[in-house]
């Protein structure tokens, strides 16, 4: 497995600091539930970044990585839905909880097609919401144009999450070395896009 470099650590630390800033600064005018969802998303990102800095990419060998890499987009998309399309919060919340449970169960009990399908459906749905919802809101003029950067972050998290999830699921889309080489930069770009985008909301 690729050894973590100093540059990787610096990029991950910057990601963690940005995520920490977002956790501290978010909250104005949002419901507790929405803030809770965003806190889970950025908190998972922060802790995952710290664990990677400490343990290196070896930390990604854990089966729980698939669950963690799903928790970030699921909680972020749930936060976006509750903030901007609150009437769907319950329905999407149930989808998110059931999706996370199914992924957790299939990670430890099944490695077949079913596990991969579940992973793709849950990740794909969450990724599409994070990508499309902010852009739609910006296009409709309900949010400033800069808010669409959250969608850019969504596209990046979708790419990163899928790469990691499929890597851990044993069906890598790119070589492990390539994924690990781009992962820290991808995480930093994604977090930066989220931060800048959310600052427009």
């Amino acid at each position, binding site marked *: 497995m690729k050894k973590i470099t100093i540059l990787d650590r610096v990029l991950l630390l910057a990601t963690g600091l940005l995520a920490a800033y977002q*956790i501290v*600064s978010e909250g104005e005018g949002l419901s507790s539930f929405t803030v809770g969802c965003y806190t889970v998303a950025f908190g998972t990102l922060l802790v995952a970044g710290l664990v990677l800095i400490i*343990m290196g990419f070896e*930390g990604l060998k854990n089966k729980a990585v698939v669950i963690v890499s799903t928790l970030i987009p699921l909680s972020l998309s749930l936060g976006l839905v509750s903030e901007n399309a609150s009437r769907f919060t319950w329905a999407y919340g149930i989808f998110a909880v059931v999706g996370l449970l199914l992924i957790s169960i299939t990670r430890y009990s099944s490695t077949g097609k079913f596990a991969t399908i579940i992973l793709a459906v849950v990740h794909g749905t969450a990724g599409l919401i994070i990508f499309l919802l902010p852009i739609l809101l910006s296009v409709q003029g309900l949010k400033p144009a800069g808010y669409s950067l959250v969608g850019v972050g969504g596209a990046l998290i979708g790419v990163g999450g899928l790469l990691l999830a499929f890597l851990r699921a044993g069906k890598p889309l790119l070589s492990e070395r390539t994924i690990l080489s781009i992962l820290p930069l991808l995480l930093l770009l994604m977090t930066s896009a989220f931060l800048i985008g959310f600052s427009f909301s």
Partner: protein
Amino acid sequence: MEKHKKLSKQFKTKYFPLIKSLQTGLLLITGLAGYMSARCPVHNIPVLLGLTGSLLFSISGSTALNMWYDRDIDAKMPRTSRRPLSTGETTPREALIFGLLLSLIGTGWAFLLDPLFGVVIFAGLFFDVVVYTIWLKRRTAWSIVWGGISGGMPVLAGRVLGIGRFDWIGIALALAVLFWIPTHILTFSMRYHQDYQAAGIPTFPSTYGNQTTRVIIASSSVLAALSMGLAGYGVGMTWGYLRLLAVLSAGLLVLAVSSMTKPSERITFGLFKYASVYMLSSMLLIFAGGV
């Protein structure tokens, strides 16, 4: 100039390793956080300098005295066998004088600054050197409780200096450090259990087994997180900072539980390092959140 260079080199090789700079730095930060939890932004620079100097000297002094007393067991453990007292770079007499001198300057400065602050600093030094190192460390695994109490003294001292008396927030901050110590020390003693065994030092892993030790680590992590959260609330941290503290605490708990359910050396050492990052971050949050 040549003499100055020689002295500087001598300090670097003979004395600096005696003060465990990272550990001393972390404890110093807890002391500063304790003070700033009550006095931030700081307007009294001389007091801040006095706090920093007295803590730095007394913590460094007690660490040097510990090394002086433990030089025989340090020589038996591969991890510590390259320390200057084990290699002969520093003589026991030099280490003793260095440790006593730093301790005297540190506690003396602390008493001059504020007698109550001085009492807490002296108590920390006494618990660490006399009770923990000299009396209990070689007798019982439970000695770490006293090590933990002395570890909690700098933050308590800082708080006492800030408000001029003891209060529940200072106690909660000290408890957070006390409960954090097992996570820090026990993960370390699990990793280096053979070293400790070779030196005949009783540890939790050697006395109660690894699984019991992991349960203790997880339990103490929960208590450390709760105490830190309580202290954070007490110092008036905003919800944003409290959320961040909760996130960092959750990371500590997840790693502690993982080390219990899926034990491996990698997780254990990851937890050890994360615990240090956690304490440093929490104290920085106490700084920032107290503003």
